[in-house]
């Protein structure tokens, strides 16, 4: 591919950082100026990312917009970036959310605006960089760079228990990354095996790592997987999430849910699974089971919450459970569905946090008991909330349906082997995981519609006072692109699915090379043949 795309991708990565530098030199105290610069920067970044989408060729295998430059050749690391379809989708999601995030807390953030704007912009660069990096050191630098601005966003601009939440978030994710760093060094030291110099280059390492002995693969896989699993988060490593989400300002929550959680699942697709294919195949049922646990457990947790933001945070555990289930199934339908579901979750949960932010700005409470009857005062806000809710519970016609349907169907047909269970006998793992996961379809409706009724329907309660303003133009501008994405992806998902097709197939071919040889479970062994009376 070479320099075909020119430095376009680099531009998209570093534009936000450039904006941050500009903000740094702006005089303190000019709040609007700082936020304005951040907004303009993020919009320009989005505009520059559009050609990425337009010029990307989904039918072409390999890295696109690739750029490679030496950095420290003696140590084996360089500046190597590029995109595949999966990374492209997530980059687009990030740049789309960028301006929305800046606008979302426009009025809410009034103190230390300069630092706040810088944090947002640095975070955007770090996130895009993480997605684009093709060098393990570069990846790790971006990965850790995400941590600091997010830590600050929660810790400085959060609500009451922000310090606890920020420290918890930081320690959790940092512990995971440290093990990954060790694994990266191991891979580096091993990379001279083929005779060349040691390198951190992803492409070179990927060529070697597949042949590692299973024992080594296992250690390395789980070292990477732990870092990613915390970020996703996979049950039971999720308890940092509700705290961080609840305490973060709306902008932080949107970025956290919209993009940062996907870095974990992206890590599985890009690093943990393809680098250590045999270990990944071994671990797939375990990960699938944890994913399903996340779906059911996360949904039940939602039903126990009294804090709106906490409820939505737990719903992320359930939604990301779907994504992990799809990845572990390793069938084309499921993996493509999982990738789409990553985008979907970014859009719909991002929108939910945005809307909850709107509510909080109006009522200054997140306590569900205070809410009720808001649809009478703010009908447009209620209508938008309902649409986003429908996307979140996967109603056909919205984006959420395509993702969930593909994941569950793909898992059902996945040749994952069988478990022997008491009472049921020998059961196809795919079928069992898919059936349990499908209960998430019911539970999702239970907690989300409960939330909607609690907040918007019924008689007006404390938080719903007359004269609360409905959506302002700024608020409409923020939420409109997300609504459009919900409908467009739901009605015409093919362009998005096309982007992930090749990387998904490559992943499956690498991890489950014999997939084609295994017969699909005929009619699902879940079924004990009933009395055939014929």
């Amino acid at each position, binding site marked *: 591919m070479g320099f075909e795309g020119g430095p376009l991708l680099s531009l998209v990565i570093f534009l936000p950082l450039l904006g941050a530098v500009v903000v740094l030199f702006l005089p303190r105290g000019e709040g609007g100026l700082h936020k304005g610069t951040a907004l303009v920067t993020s919009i320009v970044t989005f505009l520059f990312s559009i050609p990425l989408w337009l010029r990307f060729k989904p039918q072409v295998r390999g890295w696109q917009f690739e750029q490679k430059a030496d950095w420290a050749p003696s140590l084996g690391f360089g500046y190597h970036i590029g995109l595949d379809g999966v990374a492209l989708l997530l980059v687009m999601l990030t740049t789309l959310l960028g301006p929305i995030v800046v606008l979302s807390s426009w009025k809410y953030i009034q103190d230390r605006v300069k630092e706040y704007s810088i944090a947002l912009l640095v975070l955007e660069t770090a996130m895009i960089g993480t997605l684009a990096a093709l060098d393990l050191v570069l990846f790790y630098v971006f990965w850790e760079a995400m941590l600091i601005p997010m830590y600050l966003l929660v810790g400085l601009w959060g609500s009451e228990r922000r310090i606890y939440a920020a420290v918890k978030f930081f320690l959790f994710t940092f512990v995971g990354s440290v093990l990954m760093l060790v694994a990266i060094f191991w891979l580096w030291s091993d990379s001279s095996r083929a005779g060349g110099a040691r390198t951190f280059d992803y492409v070179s390492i990927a060529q070697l790592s597949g042949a590692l002995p299973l024992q080594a693969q296992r250690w390395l896989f789980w070292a990477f997987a732990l870092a990613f699993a915390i970020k996703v988060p996979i049950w039971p490593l999720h308890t940092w999430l509700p705290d961080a989400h609840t305490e973060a300002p709306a902008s932080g929550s949107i970025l956290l849910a919209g993009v940062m959680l996907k870095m974990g699942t992206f890590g599985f697709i890009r690093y943990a699974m393809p680098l250590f294919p045999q270990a990944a195949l071994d671990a797939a049922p375990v990960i699938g089971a944890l994913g399903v646990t996340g779906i059911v457990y996360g949904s039940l947790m939602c039903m126990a919450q009294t804090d709106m933001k906490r409820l939505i945070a737990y719903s992320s555990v359930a939604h990301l459970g779907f994504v992990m289930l799809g990845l572990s199934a390793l069938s084309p339908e499921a993996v493509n569905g999982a990738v789409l579901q990553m985008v979907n979750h970014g859009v719909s949960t991002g929108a939910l946090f945005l809307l909850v932010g709107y509510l909080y700005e109006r009522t200054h409470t997140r306590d569900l008991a205070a809410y009720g009857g808001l649809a009478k005062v703010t009908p447009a806000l209620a209508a938008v909330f309902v649409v986003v809710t429908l996307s979140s519970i996967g109603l056909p016609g919205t984006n959420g349906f395509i993702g969930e349907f593909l994941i569950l169907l793909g898992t059902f047909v996945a040749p994952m082997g069988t478990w022997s269970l008491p009472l049921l006998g020998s059961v196809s793992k795919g079928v069992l995981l898919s059936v349990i996961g499908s209960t998430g379809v*019911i539970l999702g409706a239970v907690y989300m519609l409960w939330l909607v009724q609690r907040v918007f329907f*019924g008689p007006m309660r404390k938080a719903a006072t007359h004269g609360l303003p409905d959506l302002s133009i700024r608020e409409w501008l923020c939420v409109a692109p997300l609504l459009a994405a919900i409908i467009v992806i739901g009605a015409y998902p093919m362009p998005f699915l096309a982007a992930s097709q090749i990387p998904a197939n490559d992943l499956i071919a690498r991890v489950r090379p014999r997939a084609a040889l295994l017969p699909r479970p005929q*009619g699902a062994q879940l079924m004990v043949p009933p009395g055939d009376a014929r």
Partner: protein
Amino acid sequence: MEVGWLYLIPLLPLLGAAFNGLAGRWVPKSWVYTVALVVVLLSFLIGFAGFVQMSGEEGTQFHETVYTWFAVGSLHVDLALSLDRLSGALVLVITGVGFLIHLYSVGYIDEDPGYWRYFAYLNLFVAAMLLLVLGDNLVAMFVGWEGVGLCSYLLIGFWFDDDAKAYAGRKAFIVNRIGDFGFLIGIFILFNATGHVDFAGMRASPLPYAVAMWAAGLLFLGATGKSAQLPLYIWLPDAMAGPTPVSALIHAATMVTAGVYMIARLSFLYVQAPGILALVALIGCLTAFWGAIIGTAQNDIKKVLAYSTVSQLGYMFIGVGVGAFFAGTAHLITHAFFKACLFLGSGAVIHGLHGEQDIAKMGGLKKYMPHTAITFAIATVAITGVLPISGFFSKDEILAQALNTSAFKFLTLTPDPTGPRLGFLGPLIYVLGTVTAGITSFYMWRCYLLTFHGNYRGPEDVHPHESPAVMTLPLWVLAILSVVGVVLVLPIHDFPWSWEHFTDGLFAHARGGAPGEYLPPLVTYGIAVVVAWVGFAGAWTLYKPARNIAGDVAFERATPRLRRALVNKLYVDEIYDVVVVRTVWRGARLLWRVVDAAIIDGLLVNGSAQLVAAIGALGRRFQNGNVQRYAAVTALGVAALVYLLLVRT
């Protein structure tokens, strides 16, 4: 045959919904009404033209692939539509009855400030329902399936500031989702076994018995949700919280029959799963009986009709369950006419009484609202079958088919092939279904007599009045359809309008061969007429005009416990509430407190943090900067070393 205009049928109401939803609030009222009505009428006209063209020749089917919706791996899902005689007839019912109900709604909802929202939802419903019947694959059908559920949710909770109504909407959605869970897994099983989700592809591959059983059974779970059958019928009576025209359109004429339609559409699958067919028939029969007995003791006019709908849907499931797909779908169509008429009539009554729904507080209304009374009476005749008009024949056909079916003769109760056979199931269903027909006649005549005859028992400041023409016109059209609908179901073979004849070759044949004949048709007709008149006689004895509500008192005195149980809907909601709803919510809270907060977060996460902190605190003691203590510790250490090195050795 490929055509290029089928998409217009669902698209037009969708556009109407978009217009009214987005702009309805700002444009004049008349625009909202015009758009809402015109799009449905246009859909009807297109559907009608297509229907005429298509039905000219047997076996013709119009097909259209609008676009590839999504295709991944071996899964290929088109947004594809097809118009055959079954879906064509239903398109006409949906848009035709739908149009009448839209028209009626103009009078009904005019004074409500949410009229624009109402018409947006109603248009959206029509679009989704059309997609449901036109969809040429299970996924497209599922879109419509869930889409109508959404509209149902929105319309039941239309007056959302009432918590009970909002709750009823939510309950409907969630109970339906439990069914949809089954529907989804059914799709997965069929795709796994055949590699297709489109009907033609699935029909082409014969299924292993176990696969067919599971797929048909799980899809039927979906049908019990959508079509309000045992054990998932509980949402439908509560759904009466919505505006009455909505109950007529969604919860009587169209949406709730979707499960019957689905089974008829998938007849090729269900005949491969005879055990599930037996289950369908049995559940249908039990639901028919269950709904009817509860209907005898309800005083809310809409609740009577709701339980009646539950019961009548049960009849349809008996029809498809015994393999007589034509009979089940014929009753679907006639029921759409007379039940829509009954619901709209009840709406006219409620409208004329300013919101009163309790039949104990009605009475004598035929004097004030003659059109409503006459049309209600005609529809009541149709549903009870005291005279041989549409409902009589369509119900009787179902019962006769159940009696004579051969579909269950080879089924055994246990896996043991020599075990007892299920041949008795058909006659059993016939008997229970016939008894139910008598009960139906009883509760419907009770409802009619209490509402329209006797003395007016409502408060004096409420002056009952007839509804405007925009509301009575649809009543008359539907009443006439309830009568002339009989041409579809006349038991004359080769009658050109006969639905059985018309749908020849459309449905698969159940195994077991053609039905035999236990009783000659004239005998079953005789029994049906007698049973209907017995029910009427019972109602007349208890509730004849002069007695007013004395009948309920007599009923209560005769069987106090039974009557109270029936009034309380046999306590099913209460049982579900304790066993399922509370258990799940309490369980969730417990799980959160114990597992999430205490074990994972408390013990493991914060516990490990505290452990580190404790070790740190311990270490801190040695670093407190107190030189004397350092010296003391050093001295102690030296002493210990001296002891170890010198004294011990």
